[in-house]
């Protein structure tokens, strides 16, 4: 693939007070791939995601998405840019005063001028696509289980058919069956909608099952990127421990027998 990367991060530095989270971080994401971002707790995976989508202002560095600089854009440009990506936060982050249908409709309502019937039909399709029953549409977020909330958050993230979806730990806190179903869902929608997926995760099974490439965050930068197979050969204690630990072996065995 020689096409220009859809997301490119160069020399990113983020700090919270005296604590430097990223120090000269570089990362490229290619169009149409599922990239898994892994790293120990506190290595700034979610911070990286927030910096890319512009929720957090880094101390230095250049972040371009679709070839446009995220940091130095006018408000109108940023708004237009934002329509082309969707974000699913940990735990779904649904608006608690709106029901599922209104949550999924929220981006359409704010960004586009659609008739209520069209919005309702599209919201119903998205909700069914993420595997929720149709009667979930009228339910409030507090009535949903954690897994259903994540699915509804995913439906909201893809409401406008974005080109990139950012997913923050989509399978964390789900039971193995639910997590596997969510992985399958991401892969299925990725191929159906032609998404680029930026996946922050701890879940080795997800990495094996759906990620085209993996980026390892450690020592305040991206230590390595490559396929899961490449990761096995990287000679770094943390990478070795992560990808060759007991859990990693279990995930590998599961994949081989599957």
């Amino acid at each position, binding site marked *: 693939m020689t096409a220009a990367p859809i997301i490119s991060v160069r020399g990113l530095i983020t700090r919270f007070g005296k604590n430097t989270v990223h120090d000269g971080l570089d990362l490229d994401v290619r169009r149409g791939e599922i990239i898994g971002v892994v790293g120990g707790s506190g290595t700034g995976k979610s911070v990286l995601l927030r910096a890319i989508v512009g929720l957090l202002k880094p101390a230095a560095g250049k972040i371009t998405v679709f070839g446009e600089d995220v940091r130095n854009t006018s408000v109108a440009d940023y708004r237009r840019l934002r329509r082309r990506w969707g974000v699913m936060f940990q735990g779904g982050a649904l608006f*608690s*005063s709106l029901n599922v249908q209104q949550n999924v409709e929220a981006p*359409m309502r704010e960004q*586009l*001028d*659609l*008739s209520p019937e*069209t919005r*309702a*039909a*599209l919201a*119903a*399709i*998205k909700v*069914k*696509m993420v595997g929720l029953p*149709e*009667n979930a*549409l*009228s339910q409030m*977020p*507090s009535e949903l289980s954690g897994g259903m909330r994540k699915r509804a958050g995913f439906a909201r993230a*893809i409401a*406008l*058919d974005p080109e990139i979806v950012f997913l923050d730990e989509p399978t964390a806190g789900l039971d193995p069956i639910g997590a596997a179903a969510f992985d399958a869902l991401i892969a*299925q*929608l990725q*191929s*159906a*909608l*032609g998404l680029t997926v930026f996946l922050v995760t701890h879940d080795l099974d997800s990495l094996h099952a759906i990620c085209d490439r993996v980026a390892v965050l450690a020592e305040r930068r991206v230590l390595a990127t490559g396929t899961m197979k490449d990761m096995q050969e990287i000679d770094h204690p943390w990478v070795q421990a992560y990808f060759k630990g007991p859990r990693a072996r279990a995930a590998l065995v599961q994949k081989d027998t599957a």
Partner: protein
Amino acid sequence: MTTAPKITLTDGILRLQGDLLISTIEAVNWSTPQSHDAKAIDLGAVGRLDTAGAWAVVSLERQLGLTGQTIGASEPQDGLLRTVRDHMPGPAHPGAGQTGIIDELEAVGRRATSAFGATISIIGFMGQVVATLASLIIQPARIRWTSLVHHMQQVGLNAVPIVFLMSFLIGVVLAFQGATQLRQFGAEVFVVDLIAISILRELGVLLTAIIVAGRSGSAFTAAIGSMKMREEIDALRALGLDPVEILVVPRVLALILMLPVLGVIANMAGLIGGALMSWIELGVSPGVFQSRLASNTGVWHFGVGMIKAPFFALIIGIVGCFQGMQVKGNVESLGSLTSASVVLSIFLVIAADALFSIFFSIVGV
């Protein structure tokens, strides 16, 4: 960069062209005349297609009875069409807005029984707190002294400035309003009695209780409610500890101890404000004010006010903690219960004050 979509009908084939996207589909007139003669839908000239576009195509298929007769779609477009076809919503959405008279009646019944249930459980909670308090008086070693002192500072000491200022201003207002009325009868000096009796008997303690309900009652609900949300209450129970003993009793006890103190401060501030205003407005010197206060106002006026203070404190503490315990998992219930806590405790304080007035008038003090 998007090309507007168009529909044309040629040789019985409905040809779509342009970009079928969420932002463009509503610009298309989907009900092209004679399209009912169409035998197939051709997507060969369609540029980009998203879920919304696919939905429009699938709806068109269904409308014309042409399901599966769509040709010319590229491989990814076909995949998207298939996905959308599998997930089309059912025809009728169950309407949420239909409510008949029966539903209305049912809602009234539900509200009535839930109000009744809430009354029963708040009385039960009060019994639990009082029983725990009594058992702690027998075994004072089990009282959480650090927590008690902390809450005494929070609800008592930290509230002194606002209580003082409020009561001072009430004294000023009473003197000012009383003076204009009493001057008409040449009875200016009775302003002392007016201020002293109204502040000592009623206003000092009542207004202090209202301020404390707004300040500390809401804080109790919010603190205990967020502990409930984060399962801290369950964690305490799992450790074999009684949340009433650890969280509720120190708060209620701190209020019972501090509200009378705040009441005394409020009484003093009100008298000072009243005396100051009487001096400026009516020329009643502080010396006259003091001697008139001592000779004409019985100590029972002060006593009546003070007797009410611990009861008000009990009401505020119980309601605040009880509402905190009612918080369920979501954030909204925390907000609504916090405001309900303030409204309910202020209402109950005023209702109790009315009952006390009747009681004291029967007793004759």
